[in-house]
């Protein structure tokens, strides 16, 4: 029963939503609205599960004095700082001028933004060290990348302004994006769509059971 009930829930909910696509009238649309309203609550609990699991993992690290355990205390500190201030502020916690907004602006924003900005350095290093035109395919990749990088910035215009209108770097980049790039992305998109359709069907028919059994 531990496995059968989840599979039954999946099938009932999934097929109900497929039926509603074709018959969007009462009483079928009521089932769609019902399942979606439940989904919001469960999704919110799933977010809380992730947060609580993070606390649990870091608590274990401190308790067992694993490598880097003092930083787990920092994780707990950051978490409870935001939570205490956020709960204290009440529903208007996102309003400019609140302490929560201040912490968001001075802690969360710089940490998040900087963490992603260091990727710029690694992209540059990878471009220099690893981007090699070893074969035909890599050469096509390299040429396309160069065209797009130069065509998508004003420098591209200045480098190619002597060329006739329609043949400048910006125009070539636009053409690459609008036609061959679109074609390739469309092929990928169609392939993924077919894959998702088949895997959704497998899940609903109970052929894919990994989520319903095992850890």
């Amino acid at each position, binding site marked *: 029963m531990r*496995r059968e009930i989840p599979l039954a829930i999946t099938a009932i909910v999934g097929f109900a939503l497929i039926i509603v696509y074709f018959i969007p009238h009462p009483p079928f649309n009521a089932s769609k609205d019902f399942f979606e309203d439940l989904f*919001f*609550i469960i999704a919110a609990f799933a977010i809380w599960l992730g947060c609580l699991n993070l606390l649990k993992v870091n608590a274990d690290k401190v308790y067992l004095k694993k490598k880097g355990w003092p930083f787990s205390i920092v994780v707990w500190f950051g978490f409870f700082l935001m*939570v205490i201030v956020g709960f204290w502020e009440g529903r208007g916690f996102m309003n400019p001028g609140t302490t929560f907004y201040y912490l968001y602006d001075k802690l969360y924003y710089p940490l998040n933004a900087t963490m992603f900005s260091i990727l710029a350095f690694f992209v540059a290093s990878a471009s220099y060290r690893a981007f090699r035109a070893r074969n035909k395919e890599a050469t096509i990749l390299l040429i*396309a990348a160069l065209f797009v990088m130069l065509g998508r910035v004003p420098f591209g215009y200045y480098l190619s302004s002597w060329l006739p209108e329609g043949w400048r770097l910006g125009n070539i980049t636009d053409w690459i994006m609008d*036609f061959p790039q679109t074609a390739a992305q469309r*092929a990928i*998109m169609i392939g993924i769509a077919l894959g998702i359709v088949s895997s959704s069907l497998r899940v609903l028919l109970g052929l894919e059971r990994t989520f319903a059994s095992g850890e």
Partner: protein
Amino acid sequence: METIGIWIAALLTLGIFSFLYKDNPFYKFCESLFVGVSAGYWFVTTFWQVFMPKLADNLVAGRFYYIIGAIFGVMMLLRLIPKIGWISRWSLALVVGTTAGLYFTRYLVSNGMVQVQYTIISLYVKGNLSQTIGNLVIVIGTFSGLIYFFFSKEHKGAFGGLAKLGIWFLMLSFGASFGYTVMSRMSLLIGRMDFLLGTWLGLIR
């Protein structure tokens, strides 16, 4: 307070950047703080933006069927207790079923059928050479790309030739994606540099 805040933000920014030289305790502190603060933000936002309006207020207003959502949600949280963690699969089943049911139709229509529809286009546009070439590129590129992804048949002969053409289109696309990725990453760095040099040090107007 604003000045203190800017200094804290700048020091945290430099702490993350210090990783570029070498991994160090200052970076690890900033990284751990980021993880904790993010989780705290998500926790609080979920409470005030979802639990309060969608669960608490609805239950108070007498819409008691929302309690089913709360029950499934608590079952999800029981995953934290290994002995009874299996019960979370019921909640997961509802999530998986909803997602599978919605994806089945939406992906088939928007990413499948509509995309195919707009690939079946005129191969010759009278009086418009550039559009004709463009349409040919779209059709040949999409078709050859799909041929490449068909691994049930060996890529030999004409089929193999089309697959090779598909690879070239894909490489062109990946090159364009790489160019855009560089643009994106540089933009993020420009933002942080503007903050450090402008907002913090006041060197830029």
